C-alpha cells in the first residue's frame, strides 16, 4: 500500500486542525483597544489566581489592559530576561521579593514610586519598603512572607522536634526541599543555623545537607512553588522546607504543621510586592499597584496567599495565627537573612550543589 502526498497532507492537516481548534474556540482573539496595556509578571498557583481576581475589580473602574506572565522557576529568572533586552523590556510591573528587589534597584531598572498616585503606600510600615541609595521608595510591599520547615500531620503524626531528627531512617526519601538558588539559599542557611552557622558561615549547613543527601533522606528537589505544592500533594513526601505560599496551598487540602518555633532553628521573614520598571506607562502602573495596596485588596490578596498583609488595618487569615511571630517572639524565632550577601554567593552555591550534593542524592 502507498500513501499519496495529498492523502498524507490531508491527514496531517486534519490532526493539526483538531489540535489548533481548541484554543481559538476558547476566544484567544480579542478586539483591539486604545487603552494602556501593562504586562505584569507574577508567580503561578494562588498568586496568579488572586491577582486576576483583584485585576478584574481594578478593571471595573480603570480601562488599563492587564496581561500576565508567570515566573518560570524562581522570580530571579526574570532578571536574565530583562538584562538580555534592556532597556527594551516588554515587562512593566514585577511581583518579586526582597532579594530580587535589591538586584533590580542595584541595576537602576526601577522607577521610584510616585506617592501622589500610590497613596496607599503611606500606611504601609516604612521598614517593609525597599529604597535606593537616594532614599527613594522603590517598591510597593504587598505581603510579609516567610520560609519555614513543616510537615504533613496526616503522614507524620507528631512530627519532629528538631531537623536533626530528619537524619533518622524513617525519613528516608521523605524530604522535599528547594534547589539552593530557590528562596535564595535559605534552605542552606537554615541547615547552617542548625549547626551553629549562618549565611556567612555556611559550611556547617553544607555538611548537614551532605548528611541528608548521602543518607537518601531527600526525595525531591523543587524549583518552583507549583512543583512544591504538587509534590507535597502526592503524599510521597511528609516533610519540607518552603515558603508560606507553598505551605498555605498544601494546608488547604491536608493538615499541615509548621516548625517555625524550634529551639535550635529559625524561621525566615521577608517581603513580597510590586515594583515598576523604567520605560513603562508609569501612571497606569502606579494606579494598578495602588489598587493592590488598598487595605481591602491587600487583605483579599494575603487571605488567599497565606501571607501576612502589609496594611496594618487589613485582617490576617485565621489559618495563619501561629504561622507568624508575635513581636516578642521575633528575636527568638525569626531570622532576617542578609539577602545582598546571599545574592553575591548564589553562583558559588549553585555550582557547589551541582558538584557536591547532586551526586550524593543521585546515589540514593
Amino acid at each position, binding site marked *: 500500500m502507498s500513501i499519496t502526498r495529498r492523502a498524507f497532507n490531508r491527514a496531517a492537516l486534519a*490532526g493539526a486542525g*483538531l*489540535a*489548533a481548534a481548541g484554543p481559538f474556540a476558547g476566544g484567544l482573539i480579542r478586539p483591539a483597544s486604545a487603552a494602556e496595556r501593562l504586562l505584569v509578571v507574577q508567580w503561578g498557583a494562588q498568586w496568579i489566581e488572586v491577582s486576576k481576581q483583584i485585576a478584574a475589580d481594578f478593571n471595573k473602574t480603570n480601562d488599563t489592559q492587564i496581561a500576565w506572565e508567570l515566573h518560570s*522557576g524562581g522570580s*530571579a529568572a526574570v532578571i*536574565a530576561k530583562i538584562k538580555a533586552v534592556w532597556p527594551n523590556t516588554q515587562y512593566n510591573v514585577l511581583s518579586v521579593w526582597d532579594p530580587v528587589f535589591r*538586584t533590580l534597584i542595584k541595576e537602576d531598572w526601577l522607577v521610584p514610586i510616585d506617592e501622589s498616585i500610590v497613596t496607599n503606600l503611606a500606611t504601609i510600615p516604612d521598614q517593609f519598603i525597599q529604597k535606593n541609595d537616594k532614599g527613594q521608595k522603590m517598591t510597593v510591599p504587598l505581603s510579609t512572607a516567610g520560609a519555614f520547615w513543616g510537615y504533613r500531620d496526616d503522614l507524620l503524626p507528631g512530627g519532629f522536634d528538631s531537623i536533626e531528627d530528619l537524619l533518622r531512617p524513617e525519613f528516608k526519601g521523605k524530604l522535599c526541599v528547594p*534547589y539552593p538558588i530557590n528562596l535564595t539559599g535559605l534552605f542552606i542557611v537554615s541547615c547552617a543555623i542548625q549547626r551553629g552557622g549562618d549565611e556567612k558561615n555556611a559550611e556547617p549547613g553544607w555538611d548537614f545537607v551532605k548528611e541528608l543527601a548521602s543518607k537518601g533522606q531527600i526525595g525531591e528537589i523543587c524549583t518552583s512553588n507549583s512543583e512544591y505544592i504538587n509534590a507535597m500533594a502526592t503524599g510521597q513526601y511528609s516533610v519540607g522546607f518552603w515558603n508560606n505560599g507553598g505551605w498555605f496551598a498544601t494546608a488547604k487540602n491536608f493538615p499541615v504543621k509548621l516548625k517555625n518555633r524550634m529551639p535550635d532553628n529559625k524561621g525566615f521573614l521577608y517581603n513580597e510586592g510590586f515594583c515598576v520598571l523604567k520605560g513603562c506607562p508609569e501612571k497606569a502602573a502606579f494606579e494598578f499597584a495602588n489598587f493592590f495596596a488598598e487595605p481591602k485588596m491587600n487583605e483579599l490578596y494575603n487571605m488567599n496567599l497565606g501571607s501576612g498583609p502589609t496594611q496594618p488595618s487589613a485582617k490576617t487569615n485565621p489559618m495563619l495565627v501561629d504561622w507568624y511571630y508575635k513581636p516578642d517572639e521575633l528575636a527568638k524565632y525569626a531570622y532576617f537573612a542578609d539577602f545582598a550577601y546571599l545574592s553575591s554567593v548564589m553562583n558559588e552555591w549553585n555550582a557547589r550543589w551541582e558538584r557536591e550534593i547532586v551526586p550524593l542524592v543521585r546515589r540514593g
Partner: protein
Amino acid sequence: MLWPALVIMAPLLLGPLLALLHESLKPYVGGRIGGDDAGALTLANYAEIAAPEYVRYFLDTFRVGLISSGLALVLGFPMAHFIVRRASPPVRRLLIGGLVGTLFLSLIVRVYAISMTFGPLGPLSGFSRLLGIASNSPDGAELMVVLGLMNTTLPLVALTLIGTLQNINPRLEEAAMSLGAPRWKTFFLVTVMMCLPGILSAGITAYAFCISNLVVPMLVGRGFILFVSNLIYARFSEVANFPGGAALSIAMMVISVGLFYGLLHLVRSTWQEAGK
C-alpha cells in the same frame, strides 16, 4: 547560489554563536548580572566545568538521550511500518492525524501525563517494578525522564520513517519472499536495511531533541536527573552567570557536533566497507 542563504544564516546563527563564545570568555563576579565587560578575557569558565563532577552531567545527558531516542526508534519503526504497509486508508489517516495532532499537544501536558500515569501513585506505577526499579528512587526519576523524552520524540520518529518507508517499493519485499526468504528475514534484510538512511536521520533528529531537552528532566527528574541544559538554564536564568552558561553551551555544542560527525564517519566507513 549559496550567498542568499549565507546572508540570512550569518546573523541568525553565526552572530549569536560568536556572541555566546565572547560571553563565555568574560570573567564573572558573584552577584553581577552577566559577565564583566571591562575585565580581561579568561578561560576560567571553561576550567570550572572541566571539573570531574561535570563529566557526569555530560555522560548522563548523552546516555539518557541515547536510551530515549533508541526506544523511540524501536517503537516508531514498527508503527510507521504498520501505517504504510498494513493499515487501511481510514485507519492510516486516523493514525497520521493522531501523530501530527500529538505534536501540537503541549510538551508539559505530555510529560505530566507520563508522570501521573507511571509515577509512584499512578495506575501504571507497577511498570517500573517490572524493570526492578523503585518508582520513588533516583532510578525511578531517570525512568520518568526516559519515558517523557520517548513520548515526545516518538511521533517525530514515526512521521519521518513513514516518508522513508513510502519510498521503498513493496515489490522488493514481495520479490525477496517469492525467492524463498522468510518474512522476518525479508523485514530485516530488505525493509530495515533499505530504510537505514531514514532510520539514521530520524535517530539523529530524536537524539538531538533529547540531549538538548530542558523541560522533561526539569519536570520529572525530581532534581536528581539534571541535563546539561538544566545547568545552562540555572546559570542564565537563576544566578545570572551568563559567562558560565555560555561556556557550558559552547562545550555542549562542540561535543555534540563532534559526536554527530564521529557517528556519521563511522556509519559511512562501515557502509563503504560493506560495499567493497
